[in-house]
């Protein structure tokens, strides 16, 4: 942990003080162990509850969008009063725990059990490198971002295991489709964050966040999202993140209308819940990384808002991003398999590559000042908008705009 | 027994497992996996020597491993493509039967 300057506001230092208070007296090897255990505990607690309430928020927002109230019935365990269905997640949790966990006779018992475990394990360990606050980085790694995506790469393995172990040719077929989707979207995901590394000059998440410090003209923060290539990278990252975590427009694998629940057909009870927890954790981790890479991690958007503690800012941005995911889920129809892969290979990958070039141009011309700055901005903008429009037109060439015969225009 | 020797033993053991695997199994994929193991053993050696080298700053060992991983990936891809091609011809991937190239 970097030394905590005493001058920082109390709230900022609160987590550290708390932890030191708790483990101050232990000798060194044990103190490190306990500290990390605490960190793990905190992460699991915070993001566990976030996961729970995220499911609730998702169902409430989807409801509201469809003009219906959404779950608001489940009363708190012992108090009769029911308010806004806050107890819903606990009810779900109880339900998933108590539900019977059926395992097909011919299934490969070991793999069947291992799949959710591996998936959840890998999606949780990705949290190790996300800087939640100014000093709240669980593990300070030099190749933090690479670690994050290395851990992420194992999800495909888990999906395959799930698909294969349930001894059901539909789930195997679905696993194959899920793998195809995951693999084809891993490339844009990786290519999306390379420009950030190129400009920030380091793979460690904390250095990326420090590289986004400071404000331009007093109010526009130096976040990468406010640069043309940064914004393009952010959009690609978010789209790829959606695909990686099988959400909204890309939720083909476990779409009900497709192959039942895809590779999760043979899963029920808590294993099924584990899969969902893994998916949500994955989503939270990816959005956390998106915040670190593009939205300035735990940095406050405006100078005079600095007094609010950094982890609060991280939380706020996280909430906004997650609500954005839910919002996207509420809006977009599901993509067909070939549209999905064509979109990845023919649109996102080339765009990401061009964006990489764009970032290289940006970093090479960083010393330009005054009028050149505008030119630099203009060129960078054109470098992104041009291919976007051209490829966009080519991509949607075949698709004529829908003509609604009866619906009022 | 210095830790470096432990590492070397570890890597040679891995190498021999790979070799035995490659030699004993008749399934083409397992032979390929055996070879992949042998490759990893070599990488392990590099890192071991880098770990105990007098000048670790110059990451030659590490660089070599990075390049070897990349090439191994390429090799694995092509090898398995070959296996699939063989399968298409003889509907099974037993290596003994894939000897049509003999002189």
């Amino acid at each position, binding site marked *: 942990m970097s030394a905590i300057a005493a001058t920082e506001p109390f709230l900022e230092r609160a987590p550290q003080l708390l932890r030191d208070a708790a483990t101050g007296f232990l000798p060194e090897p044990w103190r490190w162990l306990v500290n990390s255990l605490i960190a793990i505990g905190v992460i699991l607690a915070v993001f566990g509850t976030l996961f729970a309430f995220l499911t609730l928020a998702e169902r409430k927002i989807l409801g509201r969008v469809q003009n219906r109230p959404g779950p608001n019935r489940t009363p708190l365990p012992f108090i009769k009063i029911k308010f806004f269905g806050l107890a819903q997640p606990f009810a779900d949790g109880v339900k998933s725990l108590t539900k019977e966990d059926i395992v097909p006779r011919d299934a490969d018992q070991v793999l069947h059990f291992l799949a959710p475990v591996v998936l959840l394990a890998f999606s949780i360990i990705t949290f190790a490198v996300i800087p939640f606050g100014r000093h709240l980085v669980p593990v300070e790694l030099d190749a933090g971002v690479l670690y994050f995506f290395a851990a992420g790469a194992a999800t495909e393995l888990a999906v395959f295991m799930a698909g294969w172990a349930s001894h059901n040719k539909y789930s195997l077929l679905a696993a194959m489709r899920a793998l195809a989707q995951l693999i084809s979207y891993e490339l844009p995901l990786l290519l999306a964050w390379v420009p950030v590394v190129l400009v920030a000059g380091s793979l460690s998440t904390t250095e990326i966040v420090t590289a986004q410090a400071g404000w331009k003209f007093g109010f526009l923060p130096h976040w990468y999202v406010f640069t043309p290539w940064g914004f393009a990278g952010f959009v690609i990252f978010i789209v790829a993140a959606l695909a990686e975590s099988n959400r909204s427009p890309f939720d083909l694998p476990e779409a009900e209308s497709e192959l039942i629940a895809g590779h999760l057909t043979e899963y029920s009870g808590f294993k099924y819940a584990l899969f969902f927890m893994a998916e949500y954790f994955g989503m939270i981790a990816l959005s956390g990384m998106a915040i670190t890479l593009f939205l300035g991690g735990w940095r406050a958007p405006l100078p005079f808002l600095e007094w609010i503690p950094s982890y609060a800012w991280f939380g706020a941005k996280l909430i906004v991003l997650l609500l954005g995911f839910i919002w996207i889920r509420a809006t977009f129809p599901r993509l067909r398999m070939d549209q999905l892969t064509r979109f990845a290979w023919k649109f996102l990958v080339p765009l990401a590559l061009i964006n990489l070039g764009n970032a290289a141009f940006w970093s090479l011309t960083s010393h330009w000042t005054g009028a050149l700055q505008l030119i630099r901005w203009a060129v960078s903008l054109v470098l992104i908008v041009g291919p976007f429009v051209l490829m966009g037109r080519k991509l949607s060439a075949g698709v004529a705009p829908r003509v609604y015969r009866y619906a009022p225009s | 027994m210095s830790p470096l020797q432990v590492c070397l033993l570890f890597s040679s053991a891995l190498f021999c497992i790979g*070799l035995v695997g*490659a*030699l004993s199994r*008749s399934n083409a994929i397992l*032979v390929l996996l055996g070879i992949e193991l042998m490759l990893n053993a070599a990488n392990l050696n590099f890192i071991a020597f880098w770990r105990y080298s007098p000048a670790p700053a110059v990451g030659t060992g590490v660089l070599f491993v990075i390049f070897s991983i990349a090439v191994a990936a390429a090799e694995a891809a092509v090898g398995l493509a070959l296996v699939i091609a063989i399968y298409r011809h003889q509907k099974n991937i037993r*290596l*003994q039967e*894939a*000897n*049509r*190239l*003999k*002189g």
Partner: protein
Amino acid sequence: MKMTLSAQHLWLIPALPLLAAALGALTPRSGRTPAAGAAIGAMVLSFLLSCGALATALAHPAAHATANFTWFAVGDGAVRLGWLLDPLTAFMCVMVSFVSTLIFIFSLGYMKDDANFKQFFCFLSLFAAAMLGILVANSLLLLFVSWELVGLASYLLIGFWFHKPEAAAAAKKAFIVTRIGDLGFLLGILWLYDSTGSLLFYDNGAGVLEPTALGGLAAQTTLCGLALSTAIGLLIFCGAAGKSGQFPLHVWLPDAMEGPTPVSALIHAATMVAAGVFLIARVYPLMAADQLLAGVPVHALTVVAFIGAITALLGALIAVAQNDIKRVLAFSTVSQLGYMMLALGVGSWVAAVFHLLTHAFFKALLFLGAGSVIHAAHHEQDIRKLGGLSQPLRVTFATFAIGMMALAGVPFLFSGFWSKEAILHAAHEWEVSHLPLFAGLAAVVLTAFYMTRLVAETFFGKARSHAAEHVHENSAVMTVPLVLLAVCAIALGFLGTPAFPWLQARLLGETEVHGHSLLDGSGLMLGSIVLVALGLGAGWAVYWRTPRAKDTSPDPLASAAPATIAFLGARMKFDELYAATLGRLNTFLAAFADFLDHWVWGGAVNFLALLGEFSGTVNREADEGGLNAGFDATSEKLRQTGQAYSHAQTGGTHGYLRTVAIGFVVLVLLVMLGGGR
């Protein structure tokens, strides 16, 4: 504002007509007016520029203003060209451009109904550009280039009516004869370049005509005792002789009359032939450099003087016996050029230039007058068939008469008299010998005689042919130039009279003019006046008093001395002489070269081919027989060993892997146990 033109912009003067020529070449055949307009416009413009140049030159006559530049650099040596502006250039530019403008305007009318009217003006402006190029050049190389262009233009213009065989032959003859002269000129240039390293006349000290180089040249003596400068001067004089139609190479000039009359007027009266004289005047310091070496037997200038005298006499003699109006004028040009060369030879290049300027005007006037006559008389050129034209062609007759009197040297009023007077005066002071003076005086008489014959035959008496009867005066476009030229023929004389030698002073570079009275000419002037009167009187007596009745009636002079007149009529048979000597030599050399090529070189090549074929066959035989057998045996053995080894190729991957592993083990053992350390 007096428009002044500095040396840097001198190149504009030749460039404009060149541009007009290019324009003329590009416009389609039907573009008659644009081509003509462009040509005349260009000439007027370059005339104005020349006046500007003259103004700057006169401002400080002594200076030789130059503008040199590097044309191209090869290795460390560079070929440098340049423009030169001094009074000589300026006067000549003004003269050439003025005369050309008038002749262009004249030819508007003369060539009106000619088919390729456009080409004619294109060639004319090309010629004018080349001529001006010679004048402004500061380097012998640039001068030589323009010299050749002038030769080309004269070939094109002489052979303009190429459908007439004799015109084509005349063009070829003119071109070849001038080329012979130019060959000498080129050798001179090369020798000069070799010895001085540069071809620029004035290059602030390093130029060829500057004292340092001249001193070097004069000091060295080459073969047969000639000074280097003399040898180079003589070679350059060859070029001048060829171009100005001097004694040995004058044969082409009369034949060149085949071209249209404005061509003859422009080229063979005023400008081109004057180029030779201008060249010698330009390189005069080089020619006169060897005066210092007392002991040297031959001076370049003495040769020039004698050649000039001979040509003057020769030209005048032949002119007397010619019946074609243009031939008479052609030979008169030859003799006048002889006069100029004589003036150069005797040491006074200023008098030569002065005569050149005046001659250019009145000879152009005479030729245009002849052209007007021919045009009026439906292309009748034989004076025996003409006659009695004074009444119908009043303006032509008046201007032609002025021209005749100027040429003959009628005293005091006409320019011809003053310039010829200056030459005779210079010849008189020449201490080497007085022969050229006597030849000059004889030529004066003859000139006066044949000119009066010409005028009498054409303008007086009765029209002796149908064509001559109904003749009508030409349009203004033809008569105005005649009048202008007539005015110049008269006015120009007063520029260089001994009392007020303004032109000579300016040419020599002195700023103030100190004239001397007419009388102390030791009676030479008086003598010449008497001779002119003698010539005119004889001419009047023989031809004017009793004009010929019919075109067939005999020439009074011929009846008097039939043999000589016939001989002179045939141009002293020079053509036949050349044909006999040079012609036959040429054919002999051609035959010999053909023999060499066929038998000597041809034979060698055939022999080599034979040799190649023979060695090829020997090689095939050897290869077929001996070599193959051995080769096949070895390759067979190689195949067998390969076969043996192929059995190791079992196709089983495990086998290969096993051998690799075993090989590895053996290798390591070798290293470990074999004393690897």
